[in-house]
């Protein structure tokens, strides 16, 4: 499980970041390969729309390459990238919502998001859980997704989101409670 860099620890990515800042495209590709997973989790946590996930993440990386020269402190590149991803996700979410409203007004029907093939009971239950996660309020969904996809500690999540550890814990508890309420009777015990 990949841990988030803390200010008091040595950032193993420092040489890669320096190379990217110097304009090295191969170094940037390596950065994408290493960190695409948690960037996707940030975007999904904020956006909660699987159909737009790939496009938004691609846009985040394109913007990161274009604007990394604006980074004031190279050691703070992860919070910078987190904000970039989060802002892109929120912008995309607003645009998607606007388009859906327009489409709904035009056709009278609501658009849908991408769906799983519910081939088995487990698949169906995973689909239900994913829908419930997407329906969570963003302030609970974001730390929940970061925790489950990246295995980050409360401290790491707090560092990247700019939250105290207690707040991270409270939001994760609240996320679980809301999921439990939403899935009451729909999810079988193992």
């Amino acid at each position, binding site marked *: 499980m990949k841990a988030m860099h803390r200010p008091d620890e040595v950032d193993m990515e420092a040489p890669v970041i320096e190379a990217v*800042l110097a*304009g090295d*495209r191969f170094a*940037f*590709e390596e950065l*994408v*390969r290493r960190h*695409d*997973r948690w960037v*996707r*989790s940030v975007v*999904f946590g904020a956006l909660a729309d*699987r159909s737009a*996930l*790939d496009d938004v*993440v*691609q846009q985040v*990386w*394109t913007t990161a*390459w*274009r*604007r*990394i*020269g*604006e*980074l*004031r402190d190279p050691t703070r590149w992860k919070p910078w990238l987190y904000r970039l991803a989060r802002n892109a996700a929120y912008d995309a979410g607003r645009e998607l919502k606007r388009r859906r409203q327009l489409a709904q007004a035009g056709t009278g029907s609501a658009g849908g998001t991408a769906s*799983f093939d519910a081939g088995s009971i*487990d698949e169906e*239950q*995973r*689909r*239900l*859980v*994913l829908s419930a*996660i997407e329906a969570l309020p963003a302030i609970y969904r974001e730390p*929940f*997704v970061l*925790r*489950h*996809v990246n295995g980050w*500690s*409360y401290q790491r999540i707090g560092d990247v989101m700019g939250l105290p550890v207690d707040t991270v*814990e409270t939001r*994760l*508890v609240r996320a*679980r*409670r809301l*999921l*439990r309420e939403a*899935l009451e009777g729909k*999810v*079988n*015990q*193992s």
Partner: protein
Amino acid sequence: MTRSHDDFERLIVRRLDGELGEEESLELDRAILREPEVRRMWESYRRIDELAAASLEGALVRGAGRYDMARLTDERRVARRWTHHRGWLLVPGAIAAALLALVVPKPEFLDRGRVPSTPTERLTARSANDESLPRVSDRTDGLMHNAGMTKRATGRDVLGVVGDDGNLYLLEVDRSRTVRMPPPRTGPVDEL
């Protein structure tokens, strides 16, 4: 110490997230064994977490890393801006230069026998003769006052200008903002 339902919920979540200490873990284990409600809560949250991890993995991994790298890096980059690292030196540097210009006397051979001809030189001559620097006033003040508007001073900038003689001269620029004047009171003032 008896814990509430919410307390055990918090312990369960912290255990699922790997944040539970040893003592609290033992306490939770005892509660799971002794209290059916806590056991149900534990099983429910554990199942939801398993499904959440699997569903998120499926949702996020699909498409991961499959980017057109050439397109990603095709955009023109913003050059590493030196101002972010050294821009702050401009302000103290300008202040230091201005102070030096004030403290260090100008060599006489530079303007000996010269008649000031450029605006900068005339300014220098005036300041050397202890004449106050000319100020340009806003000629629209009267017009604006009549139109119910007035100017309020909002600040002052000091600019350093290198003159023809190579010396640094300071220009004071007063900044102001046009605001609407409050209407004059005509009736009695209401008592609170």
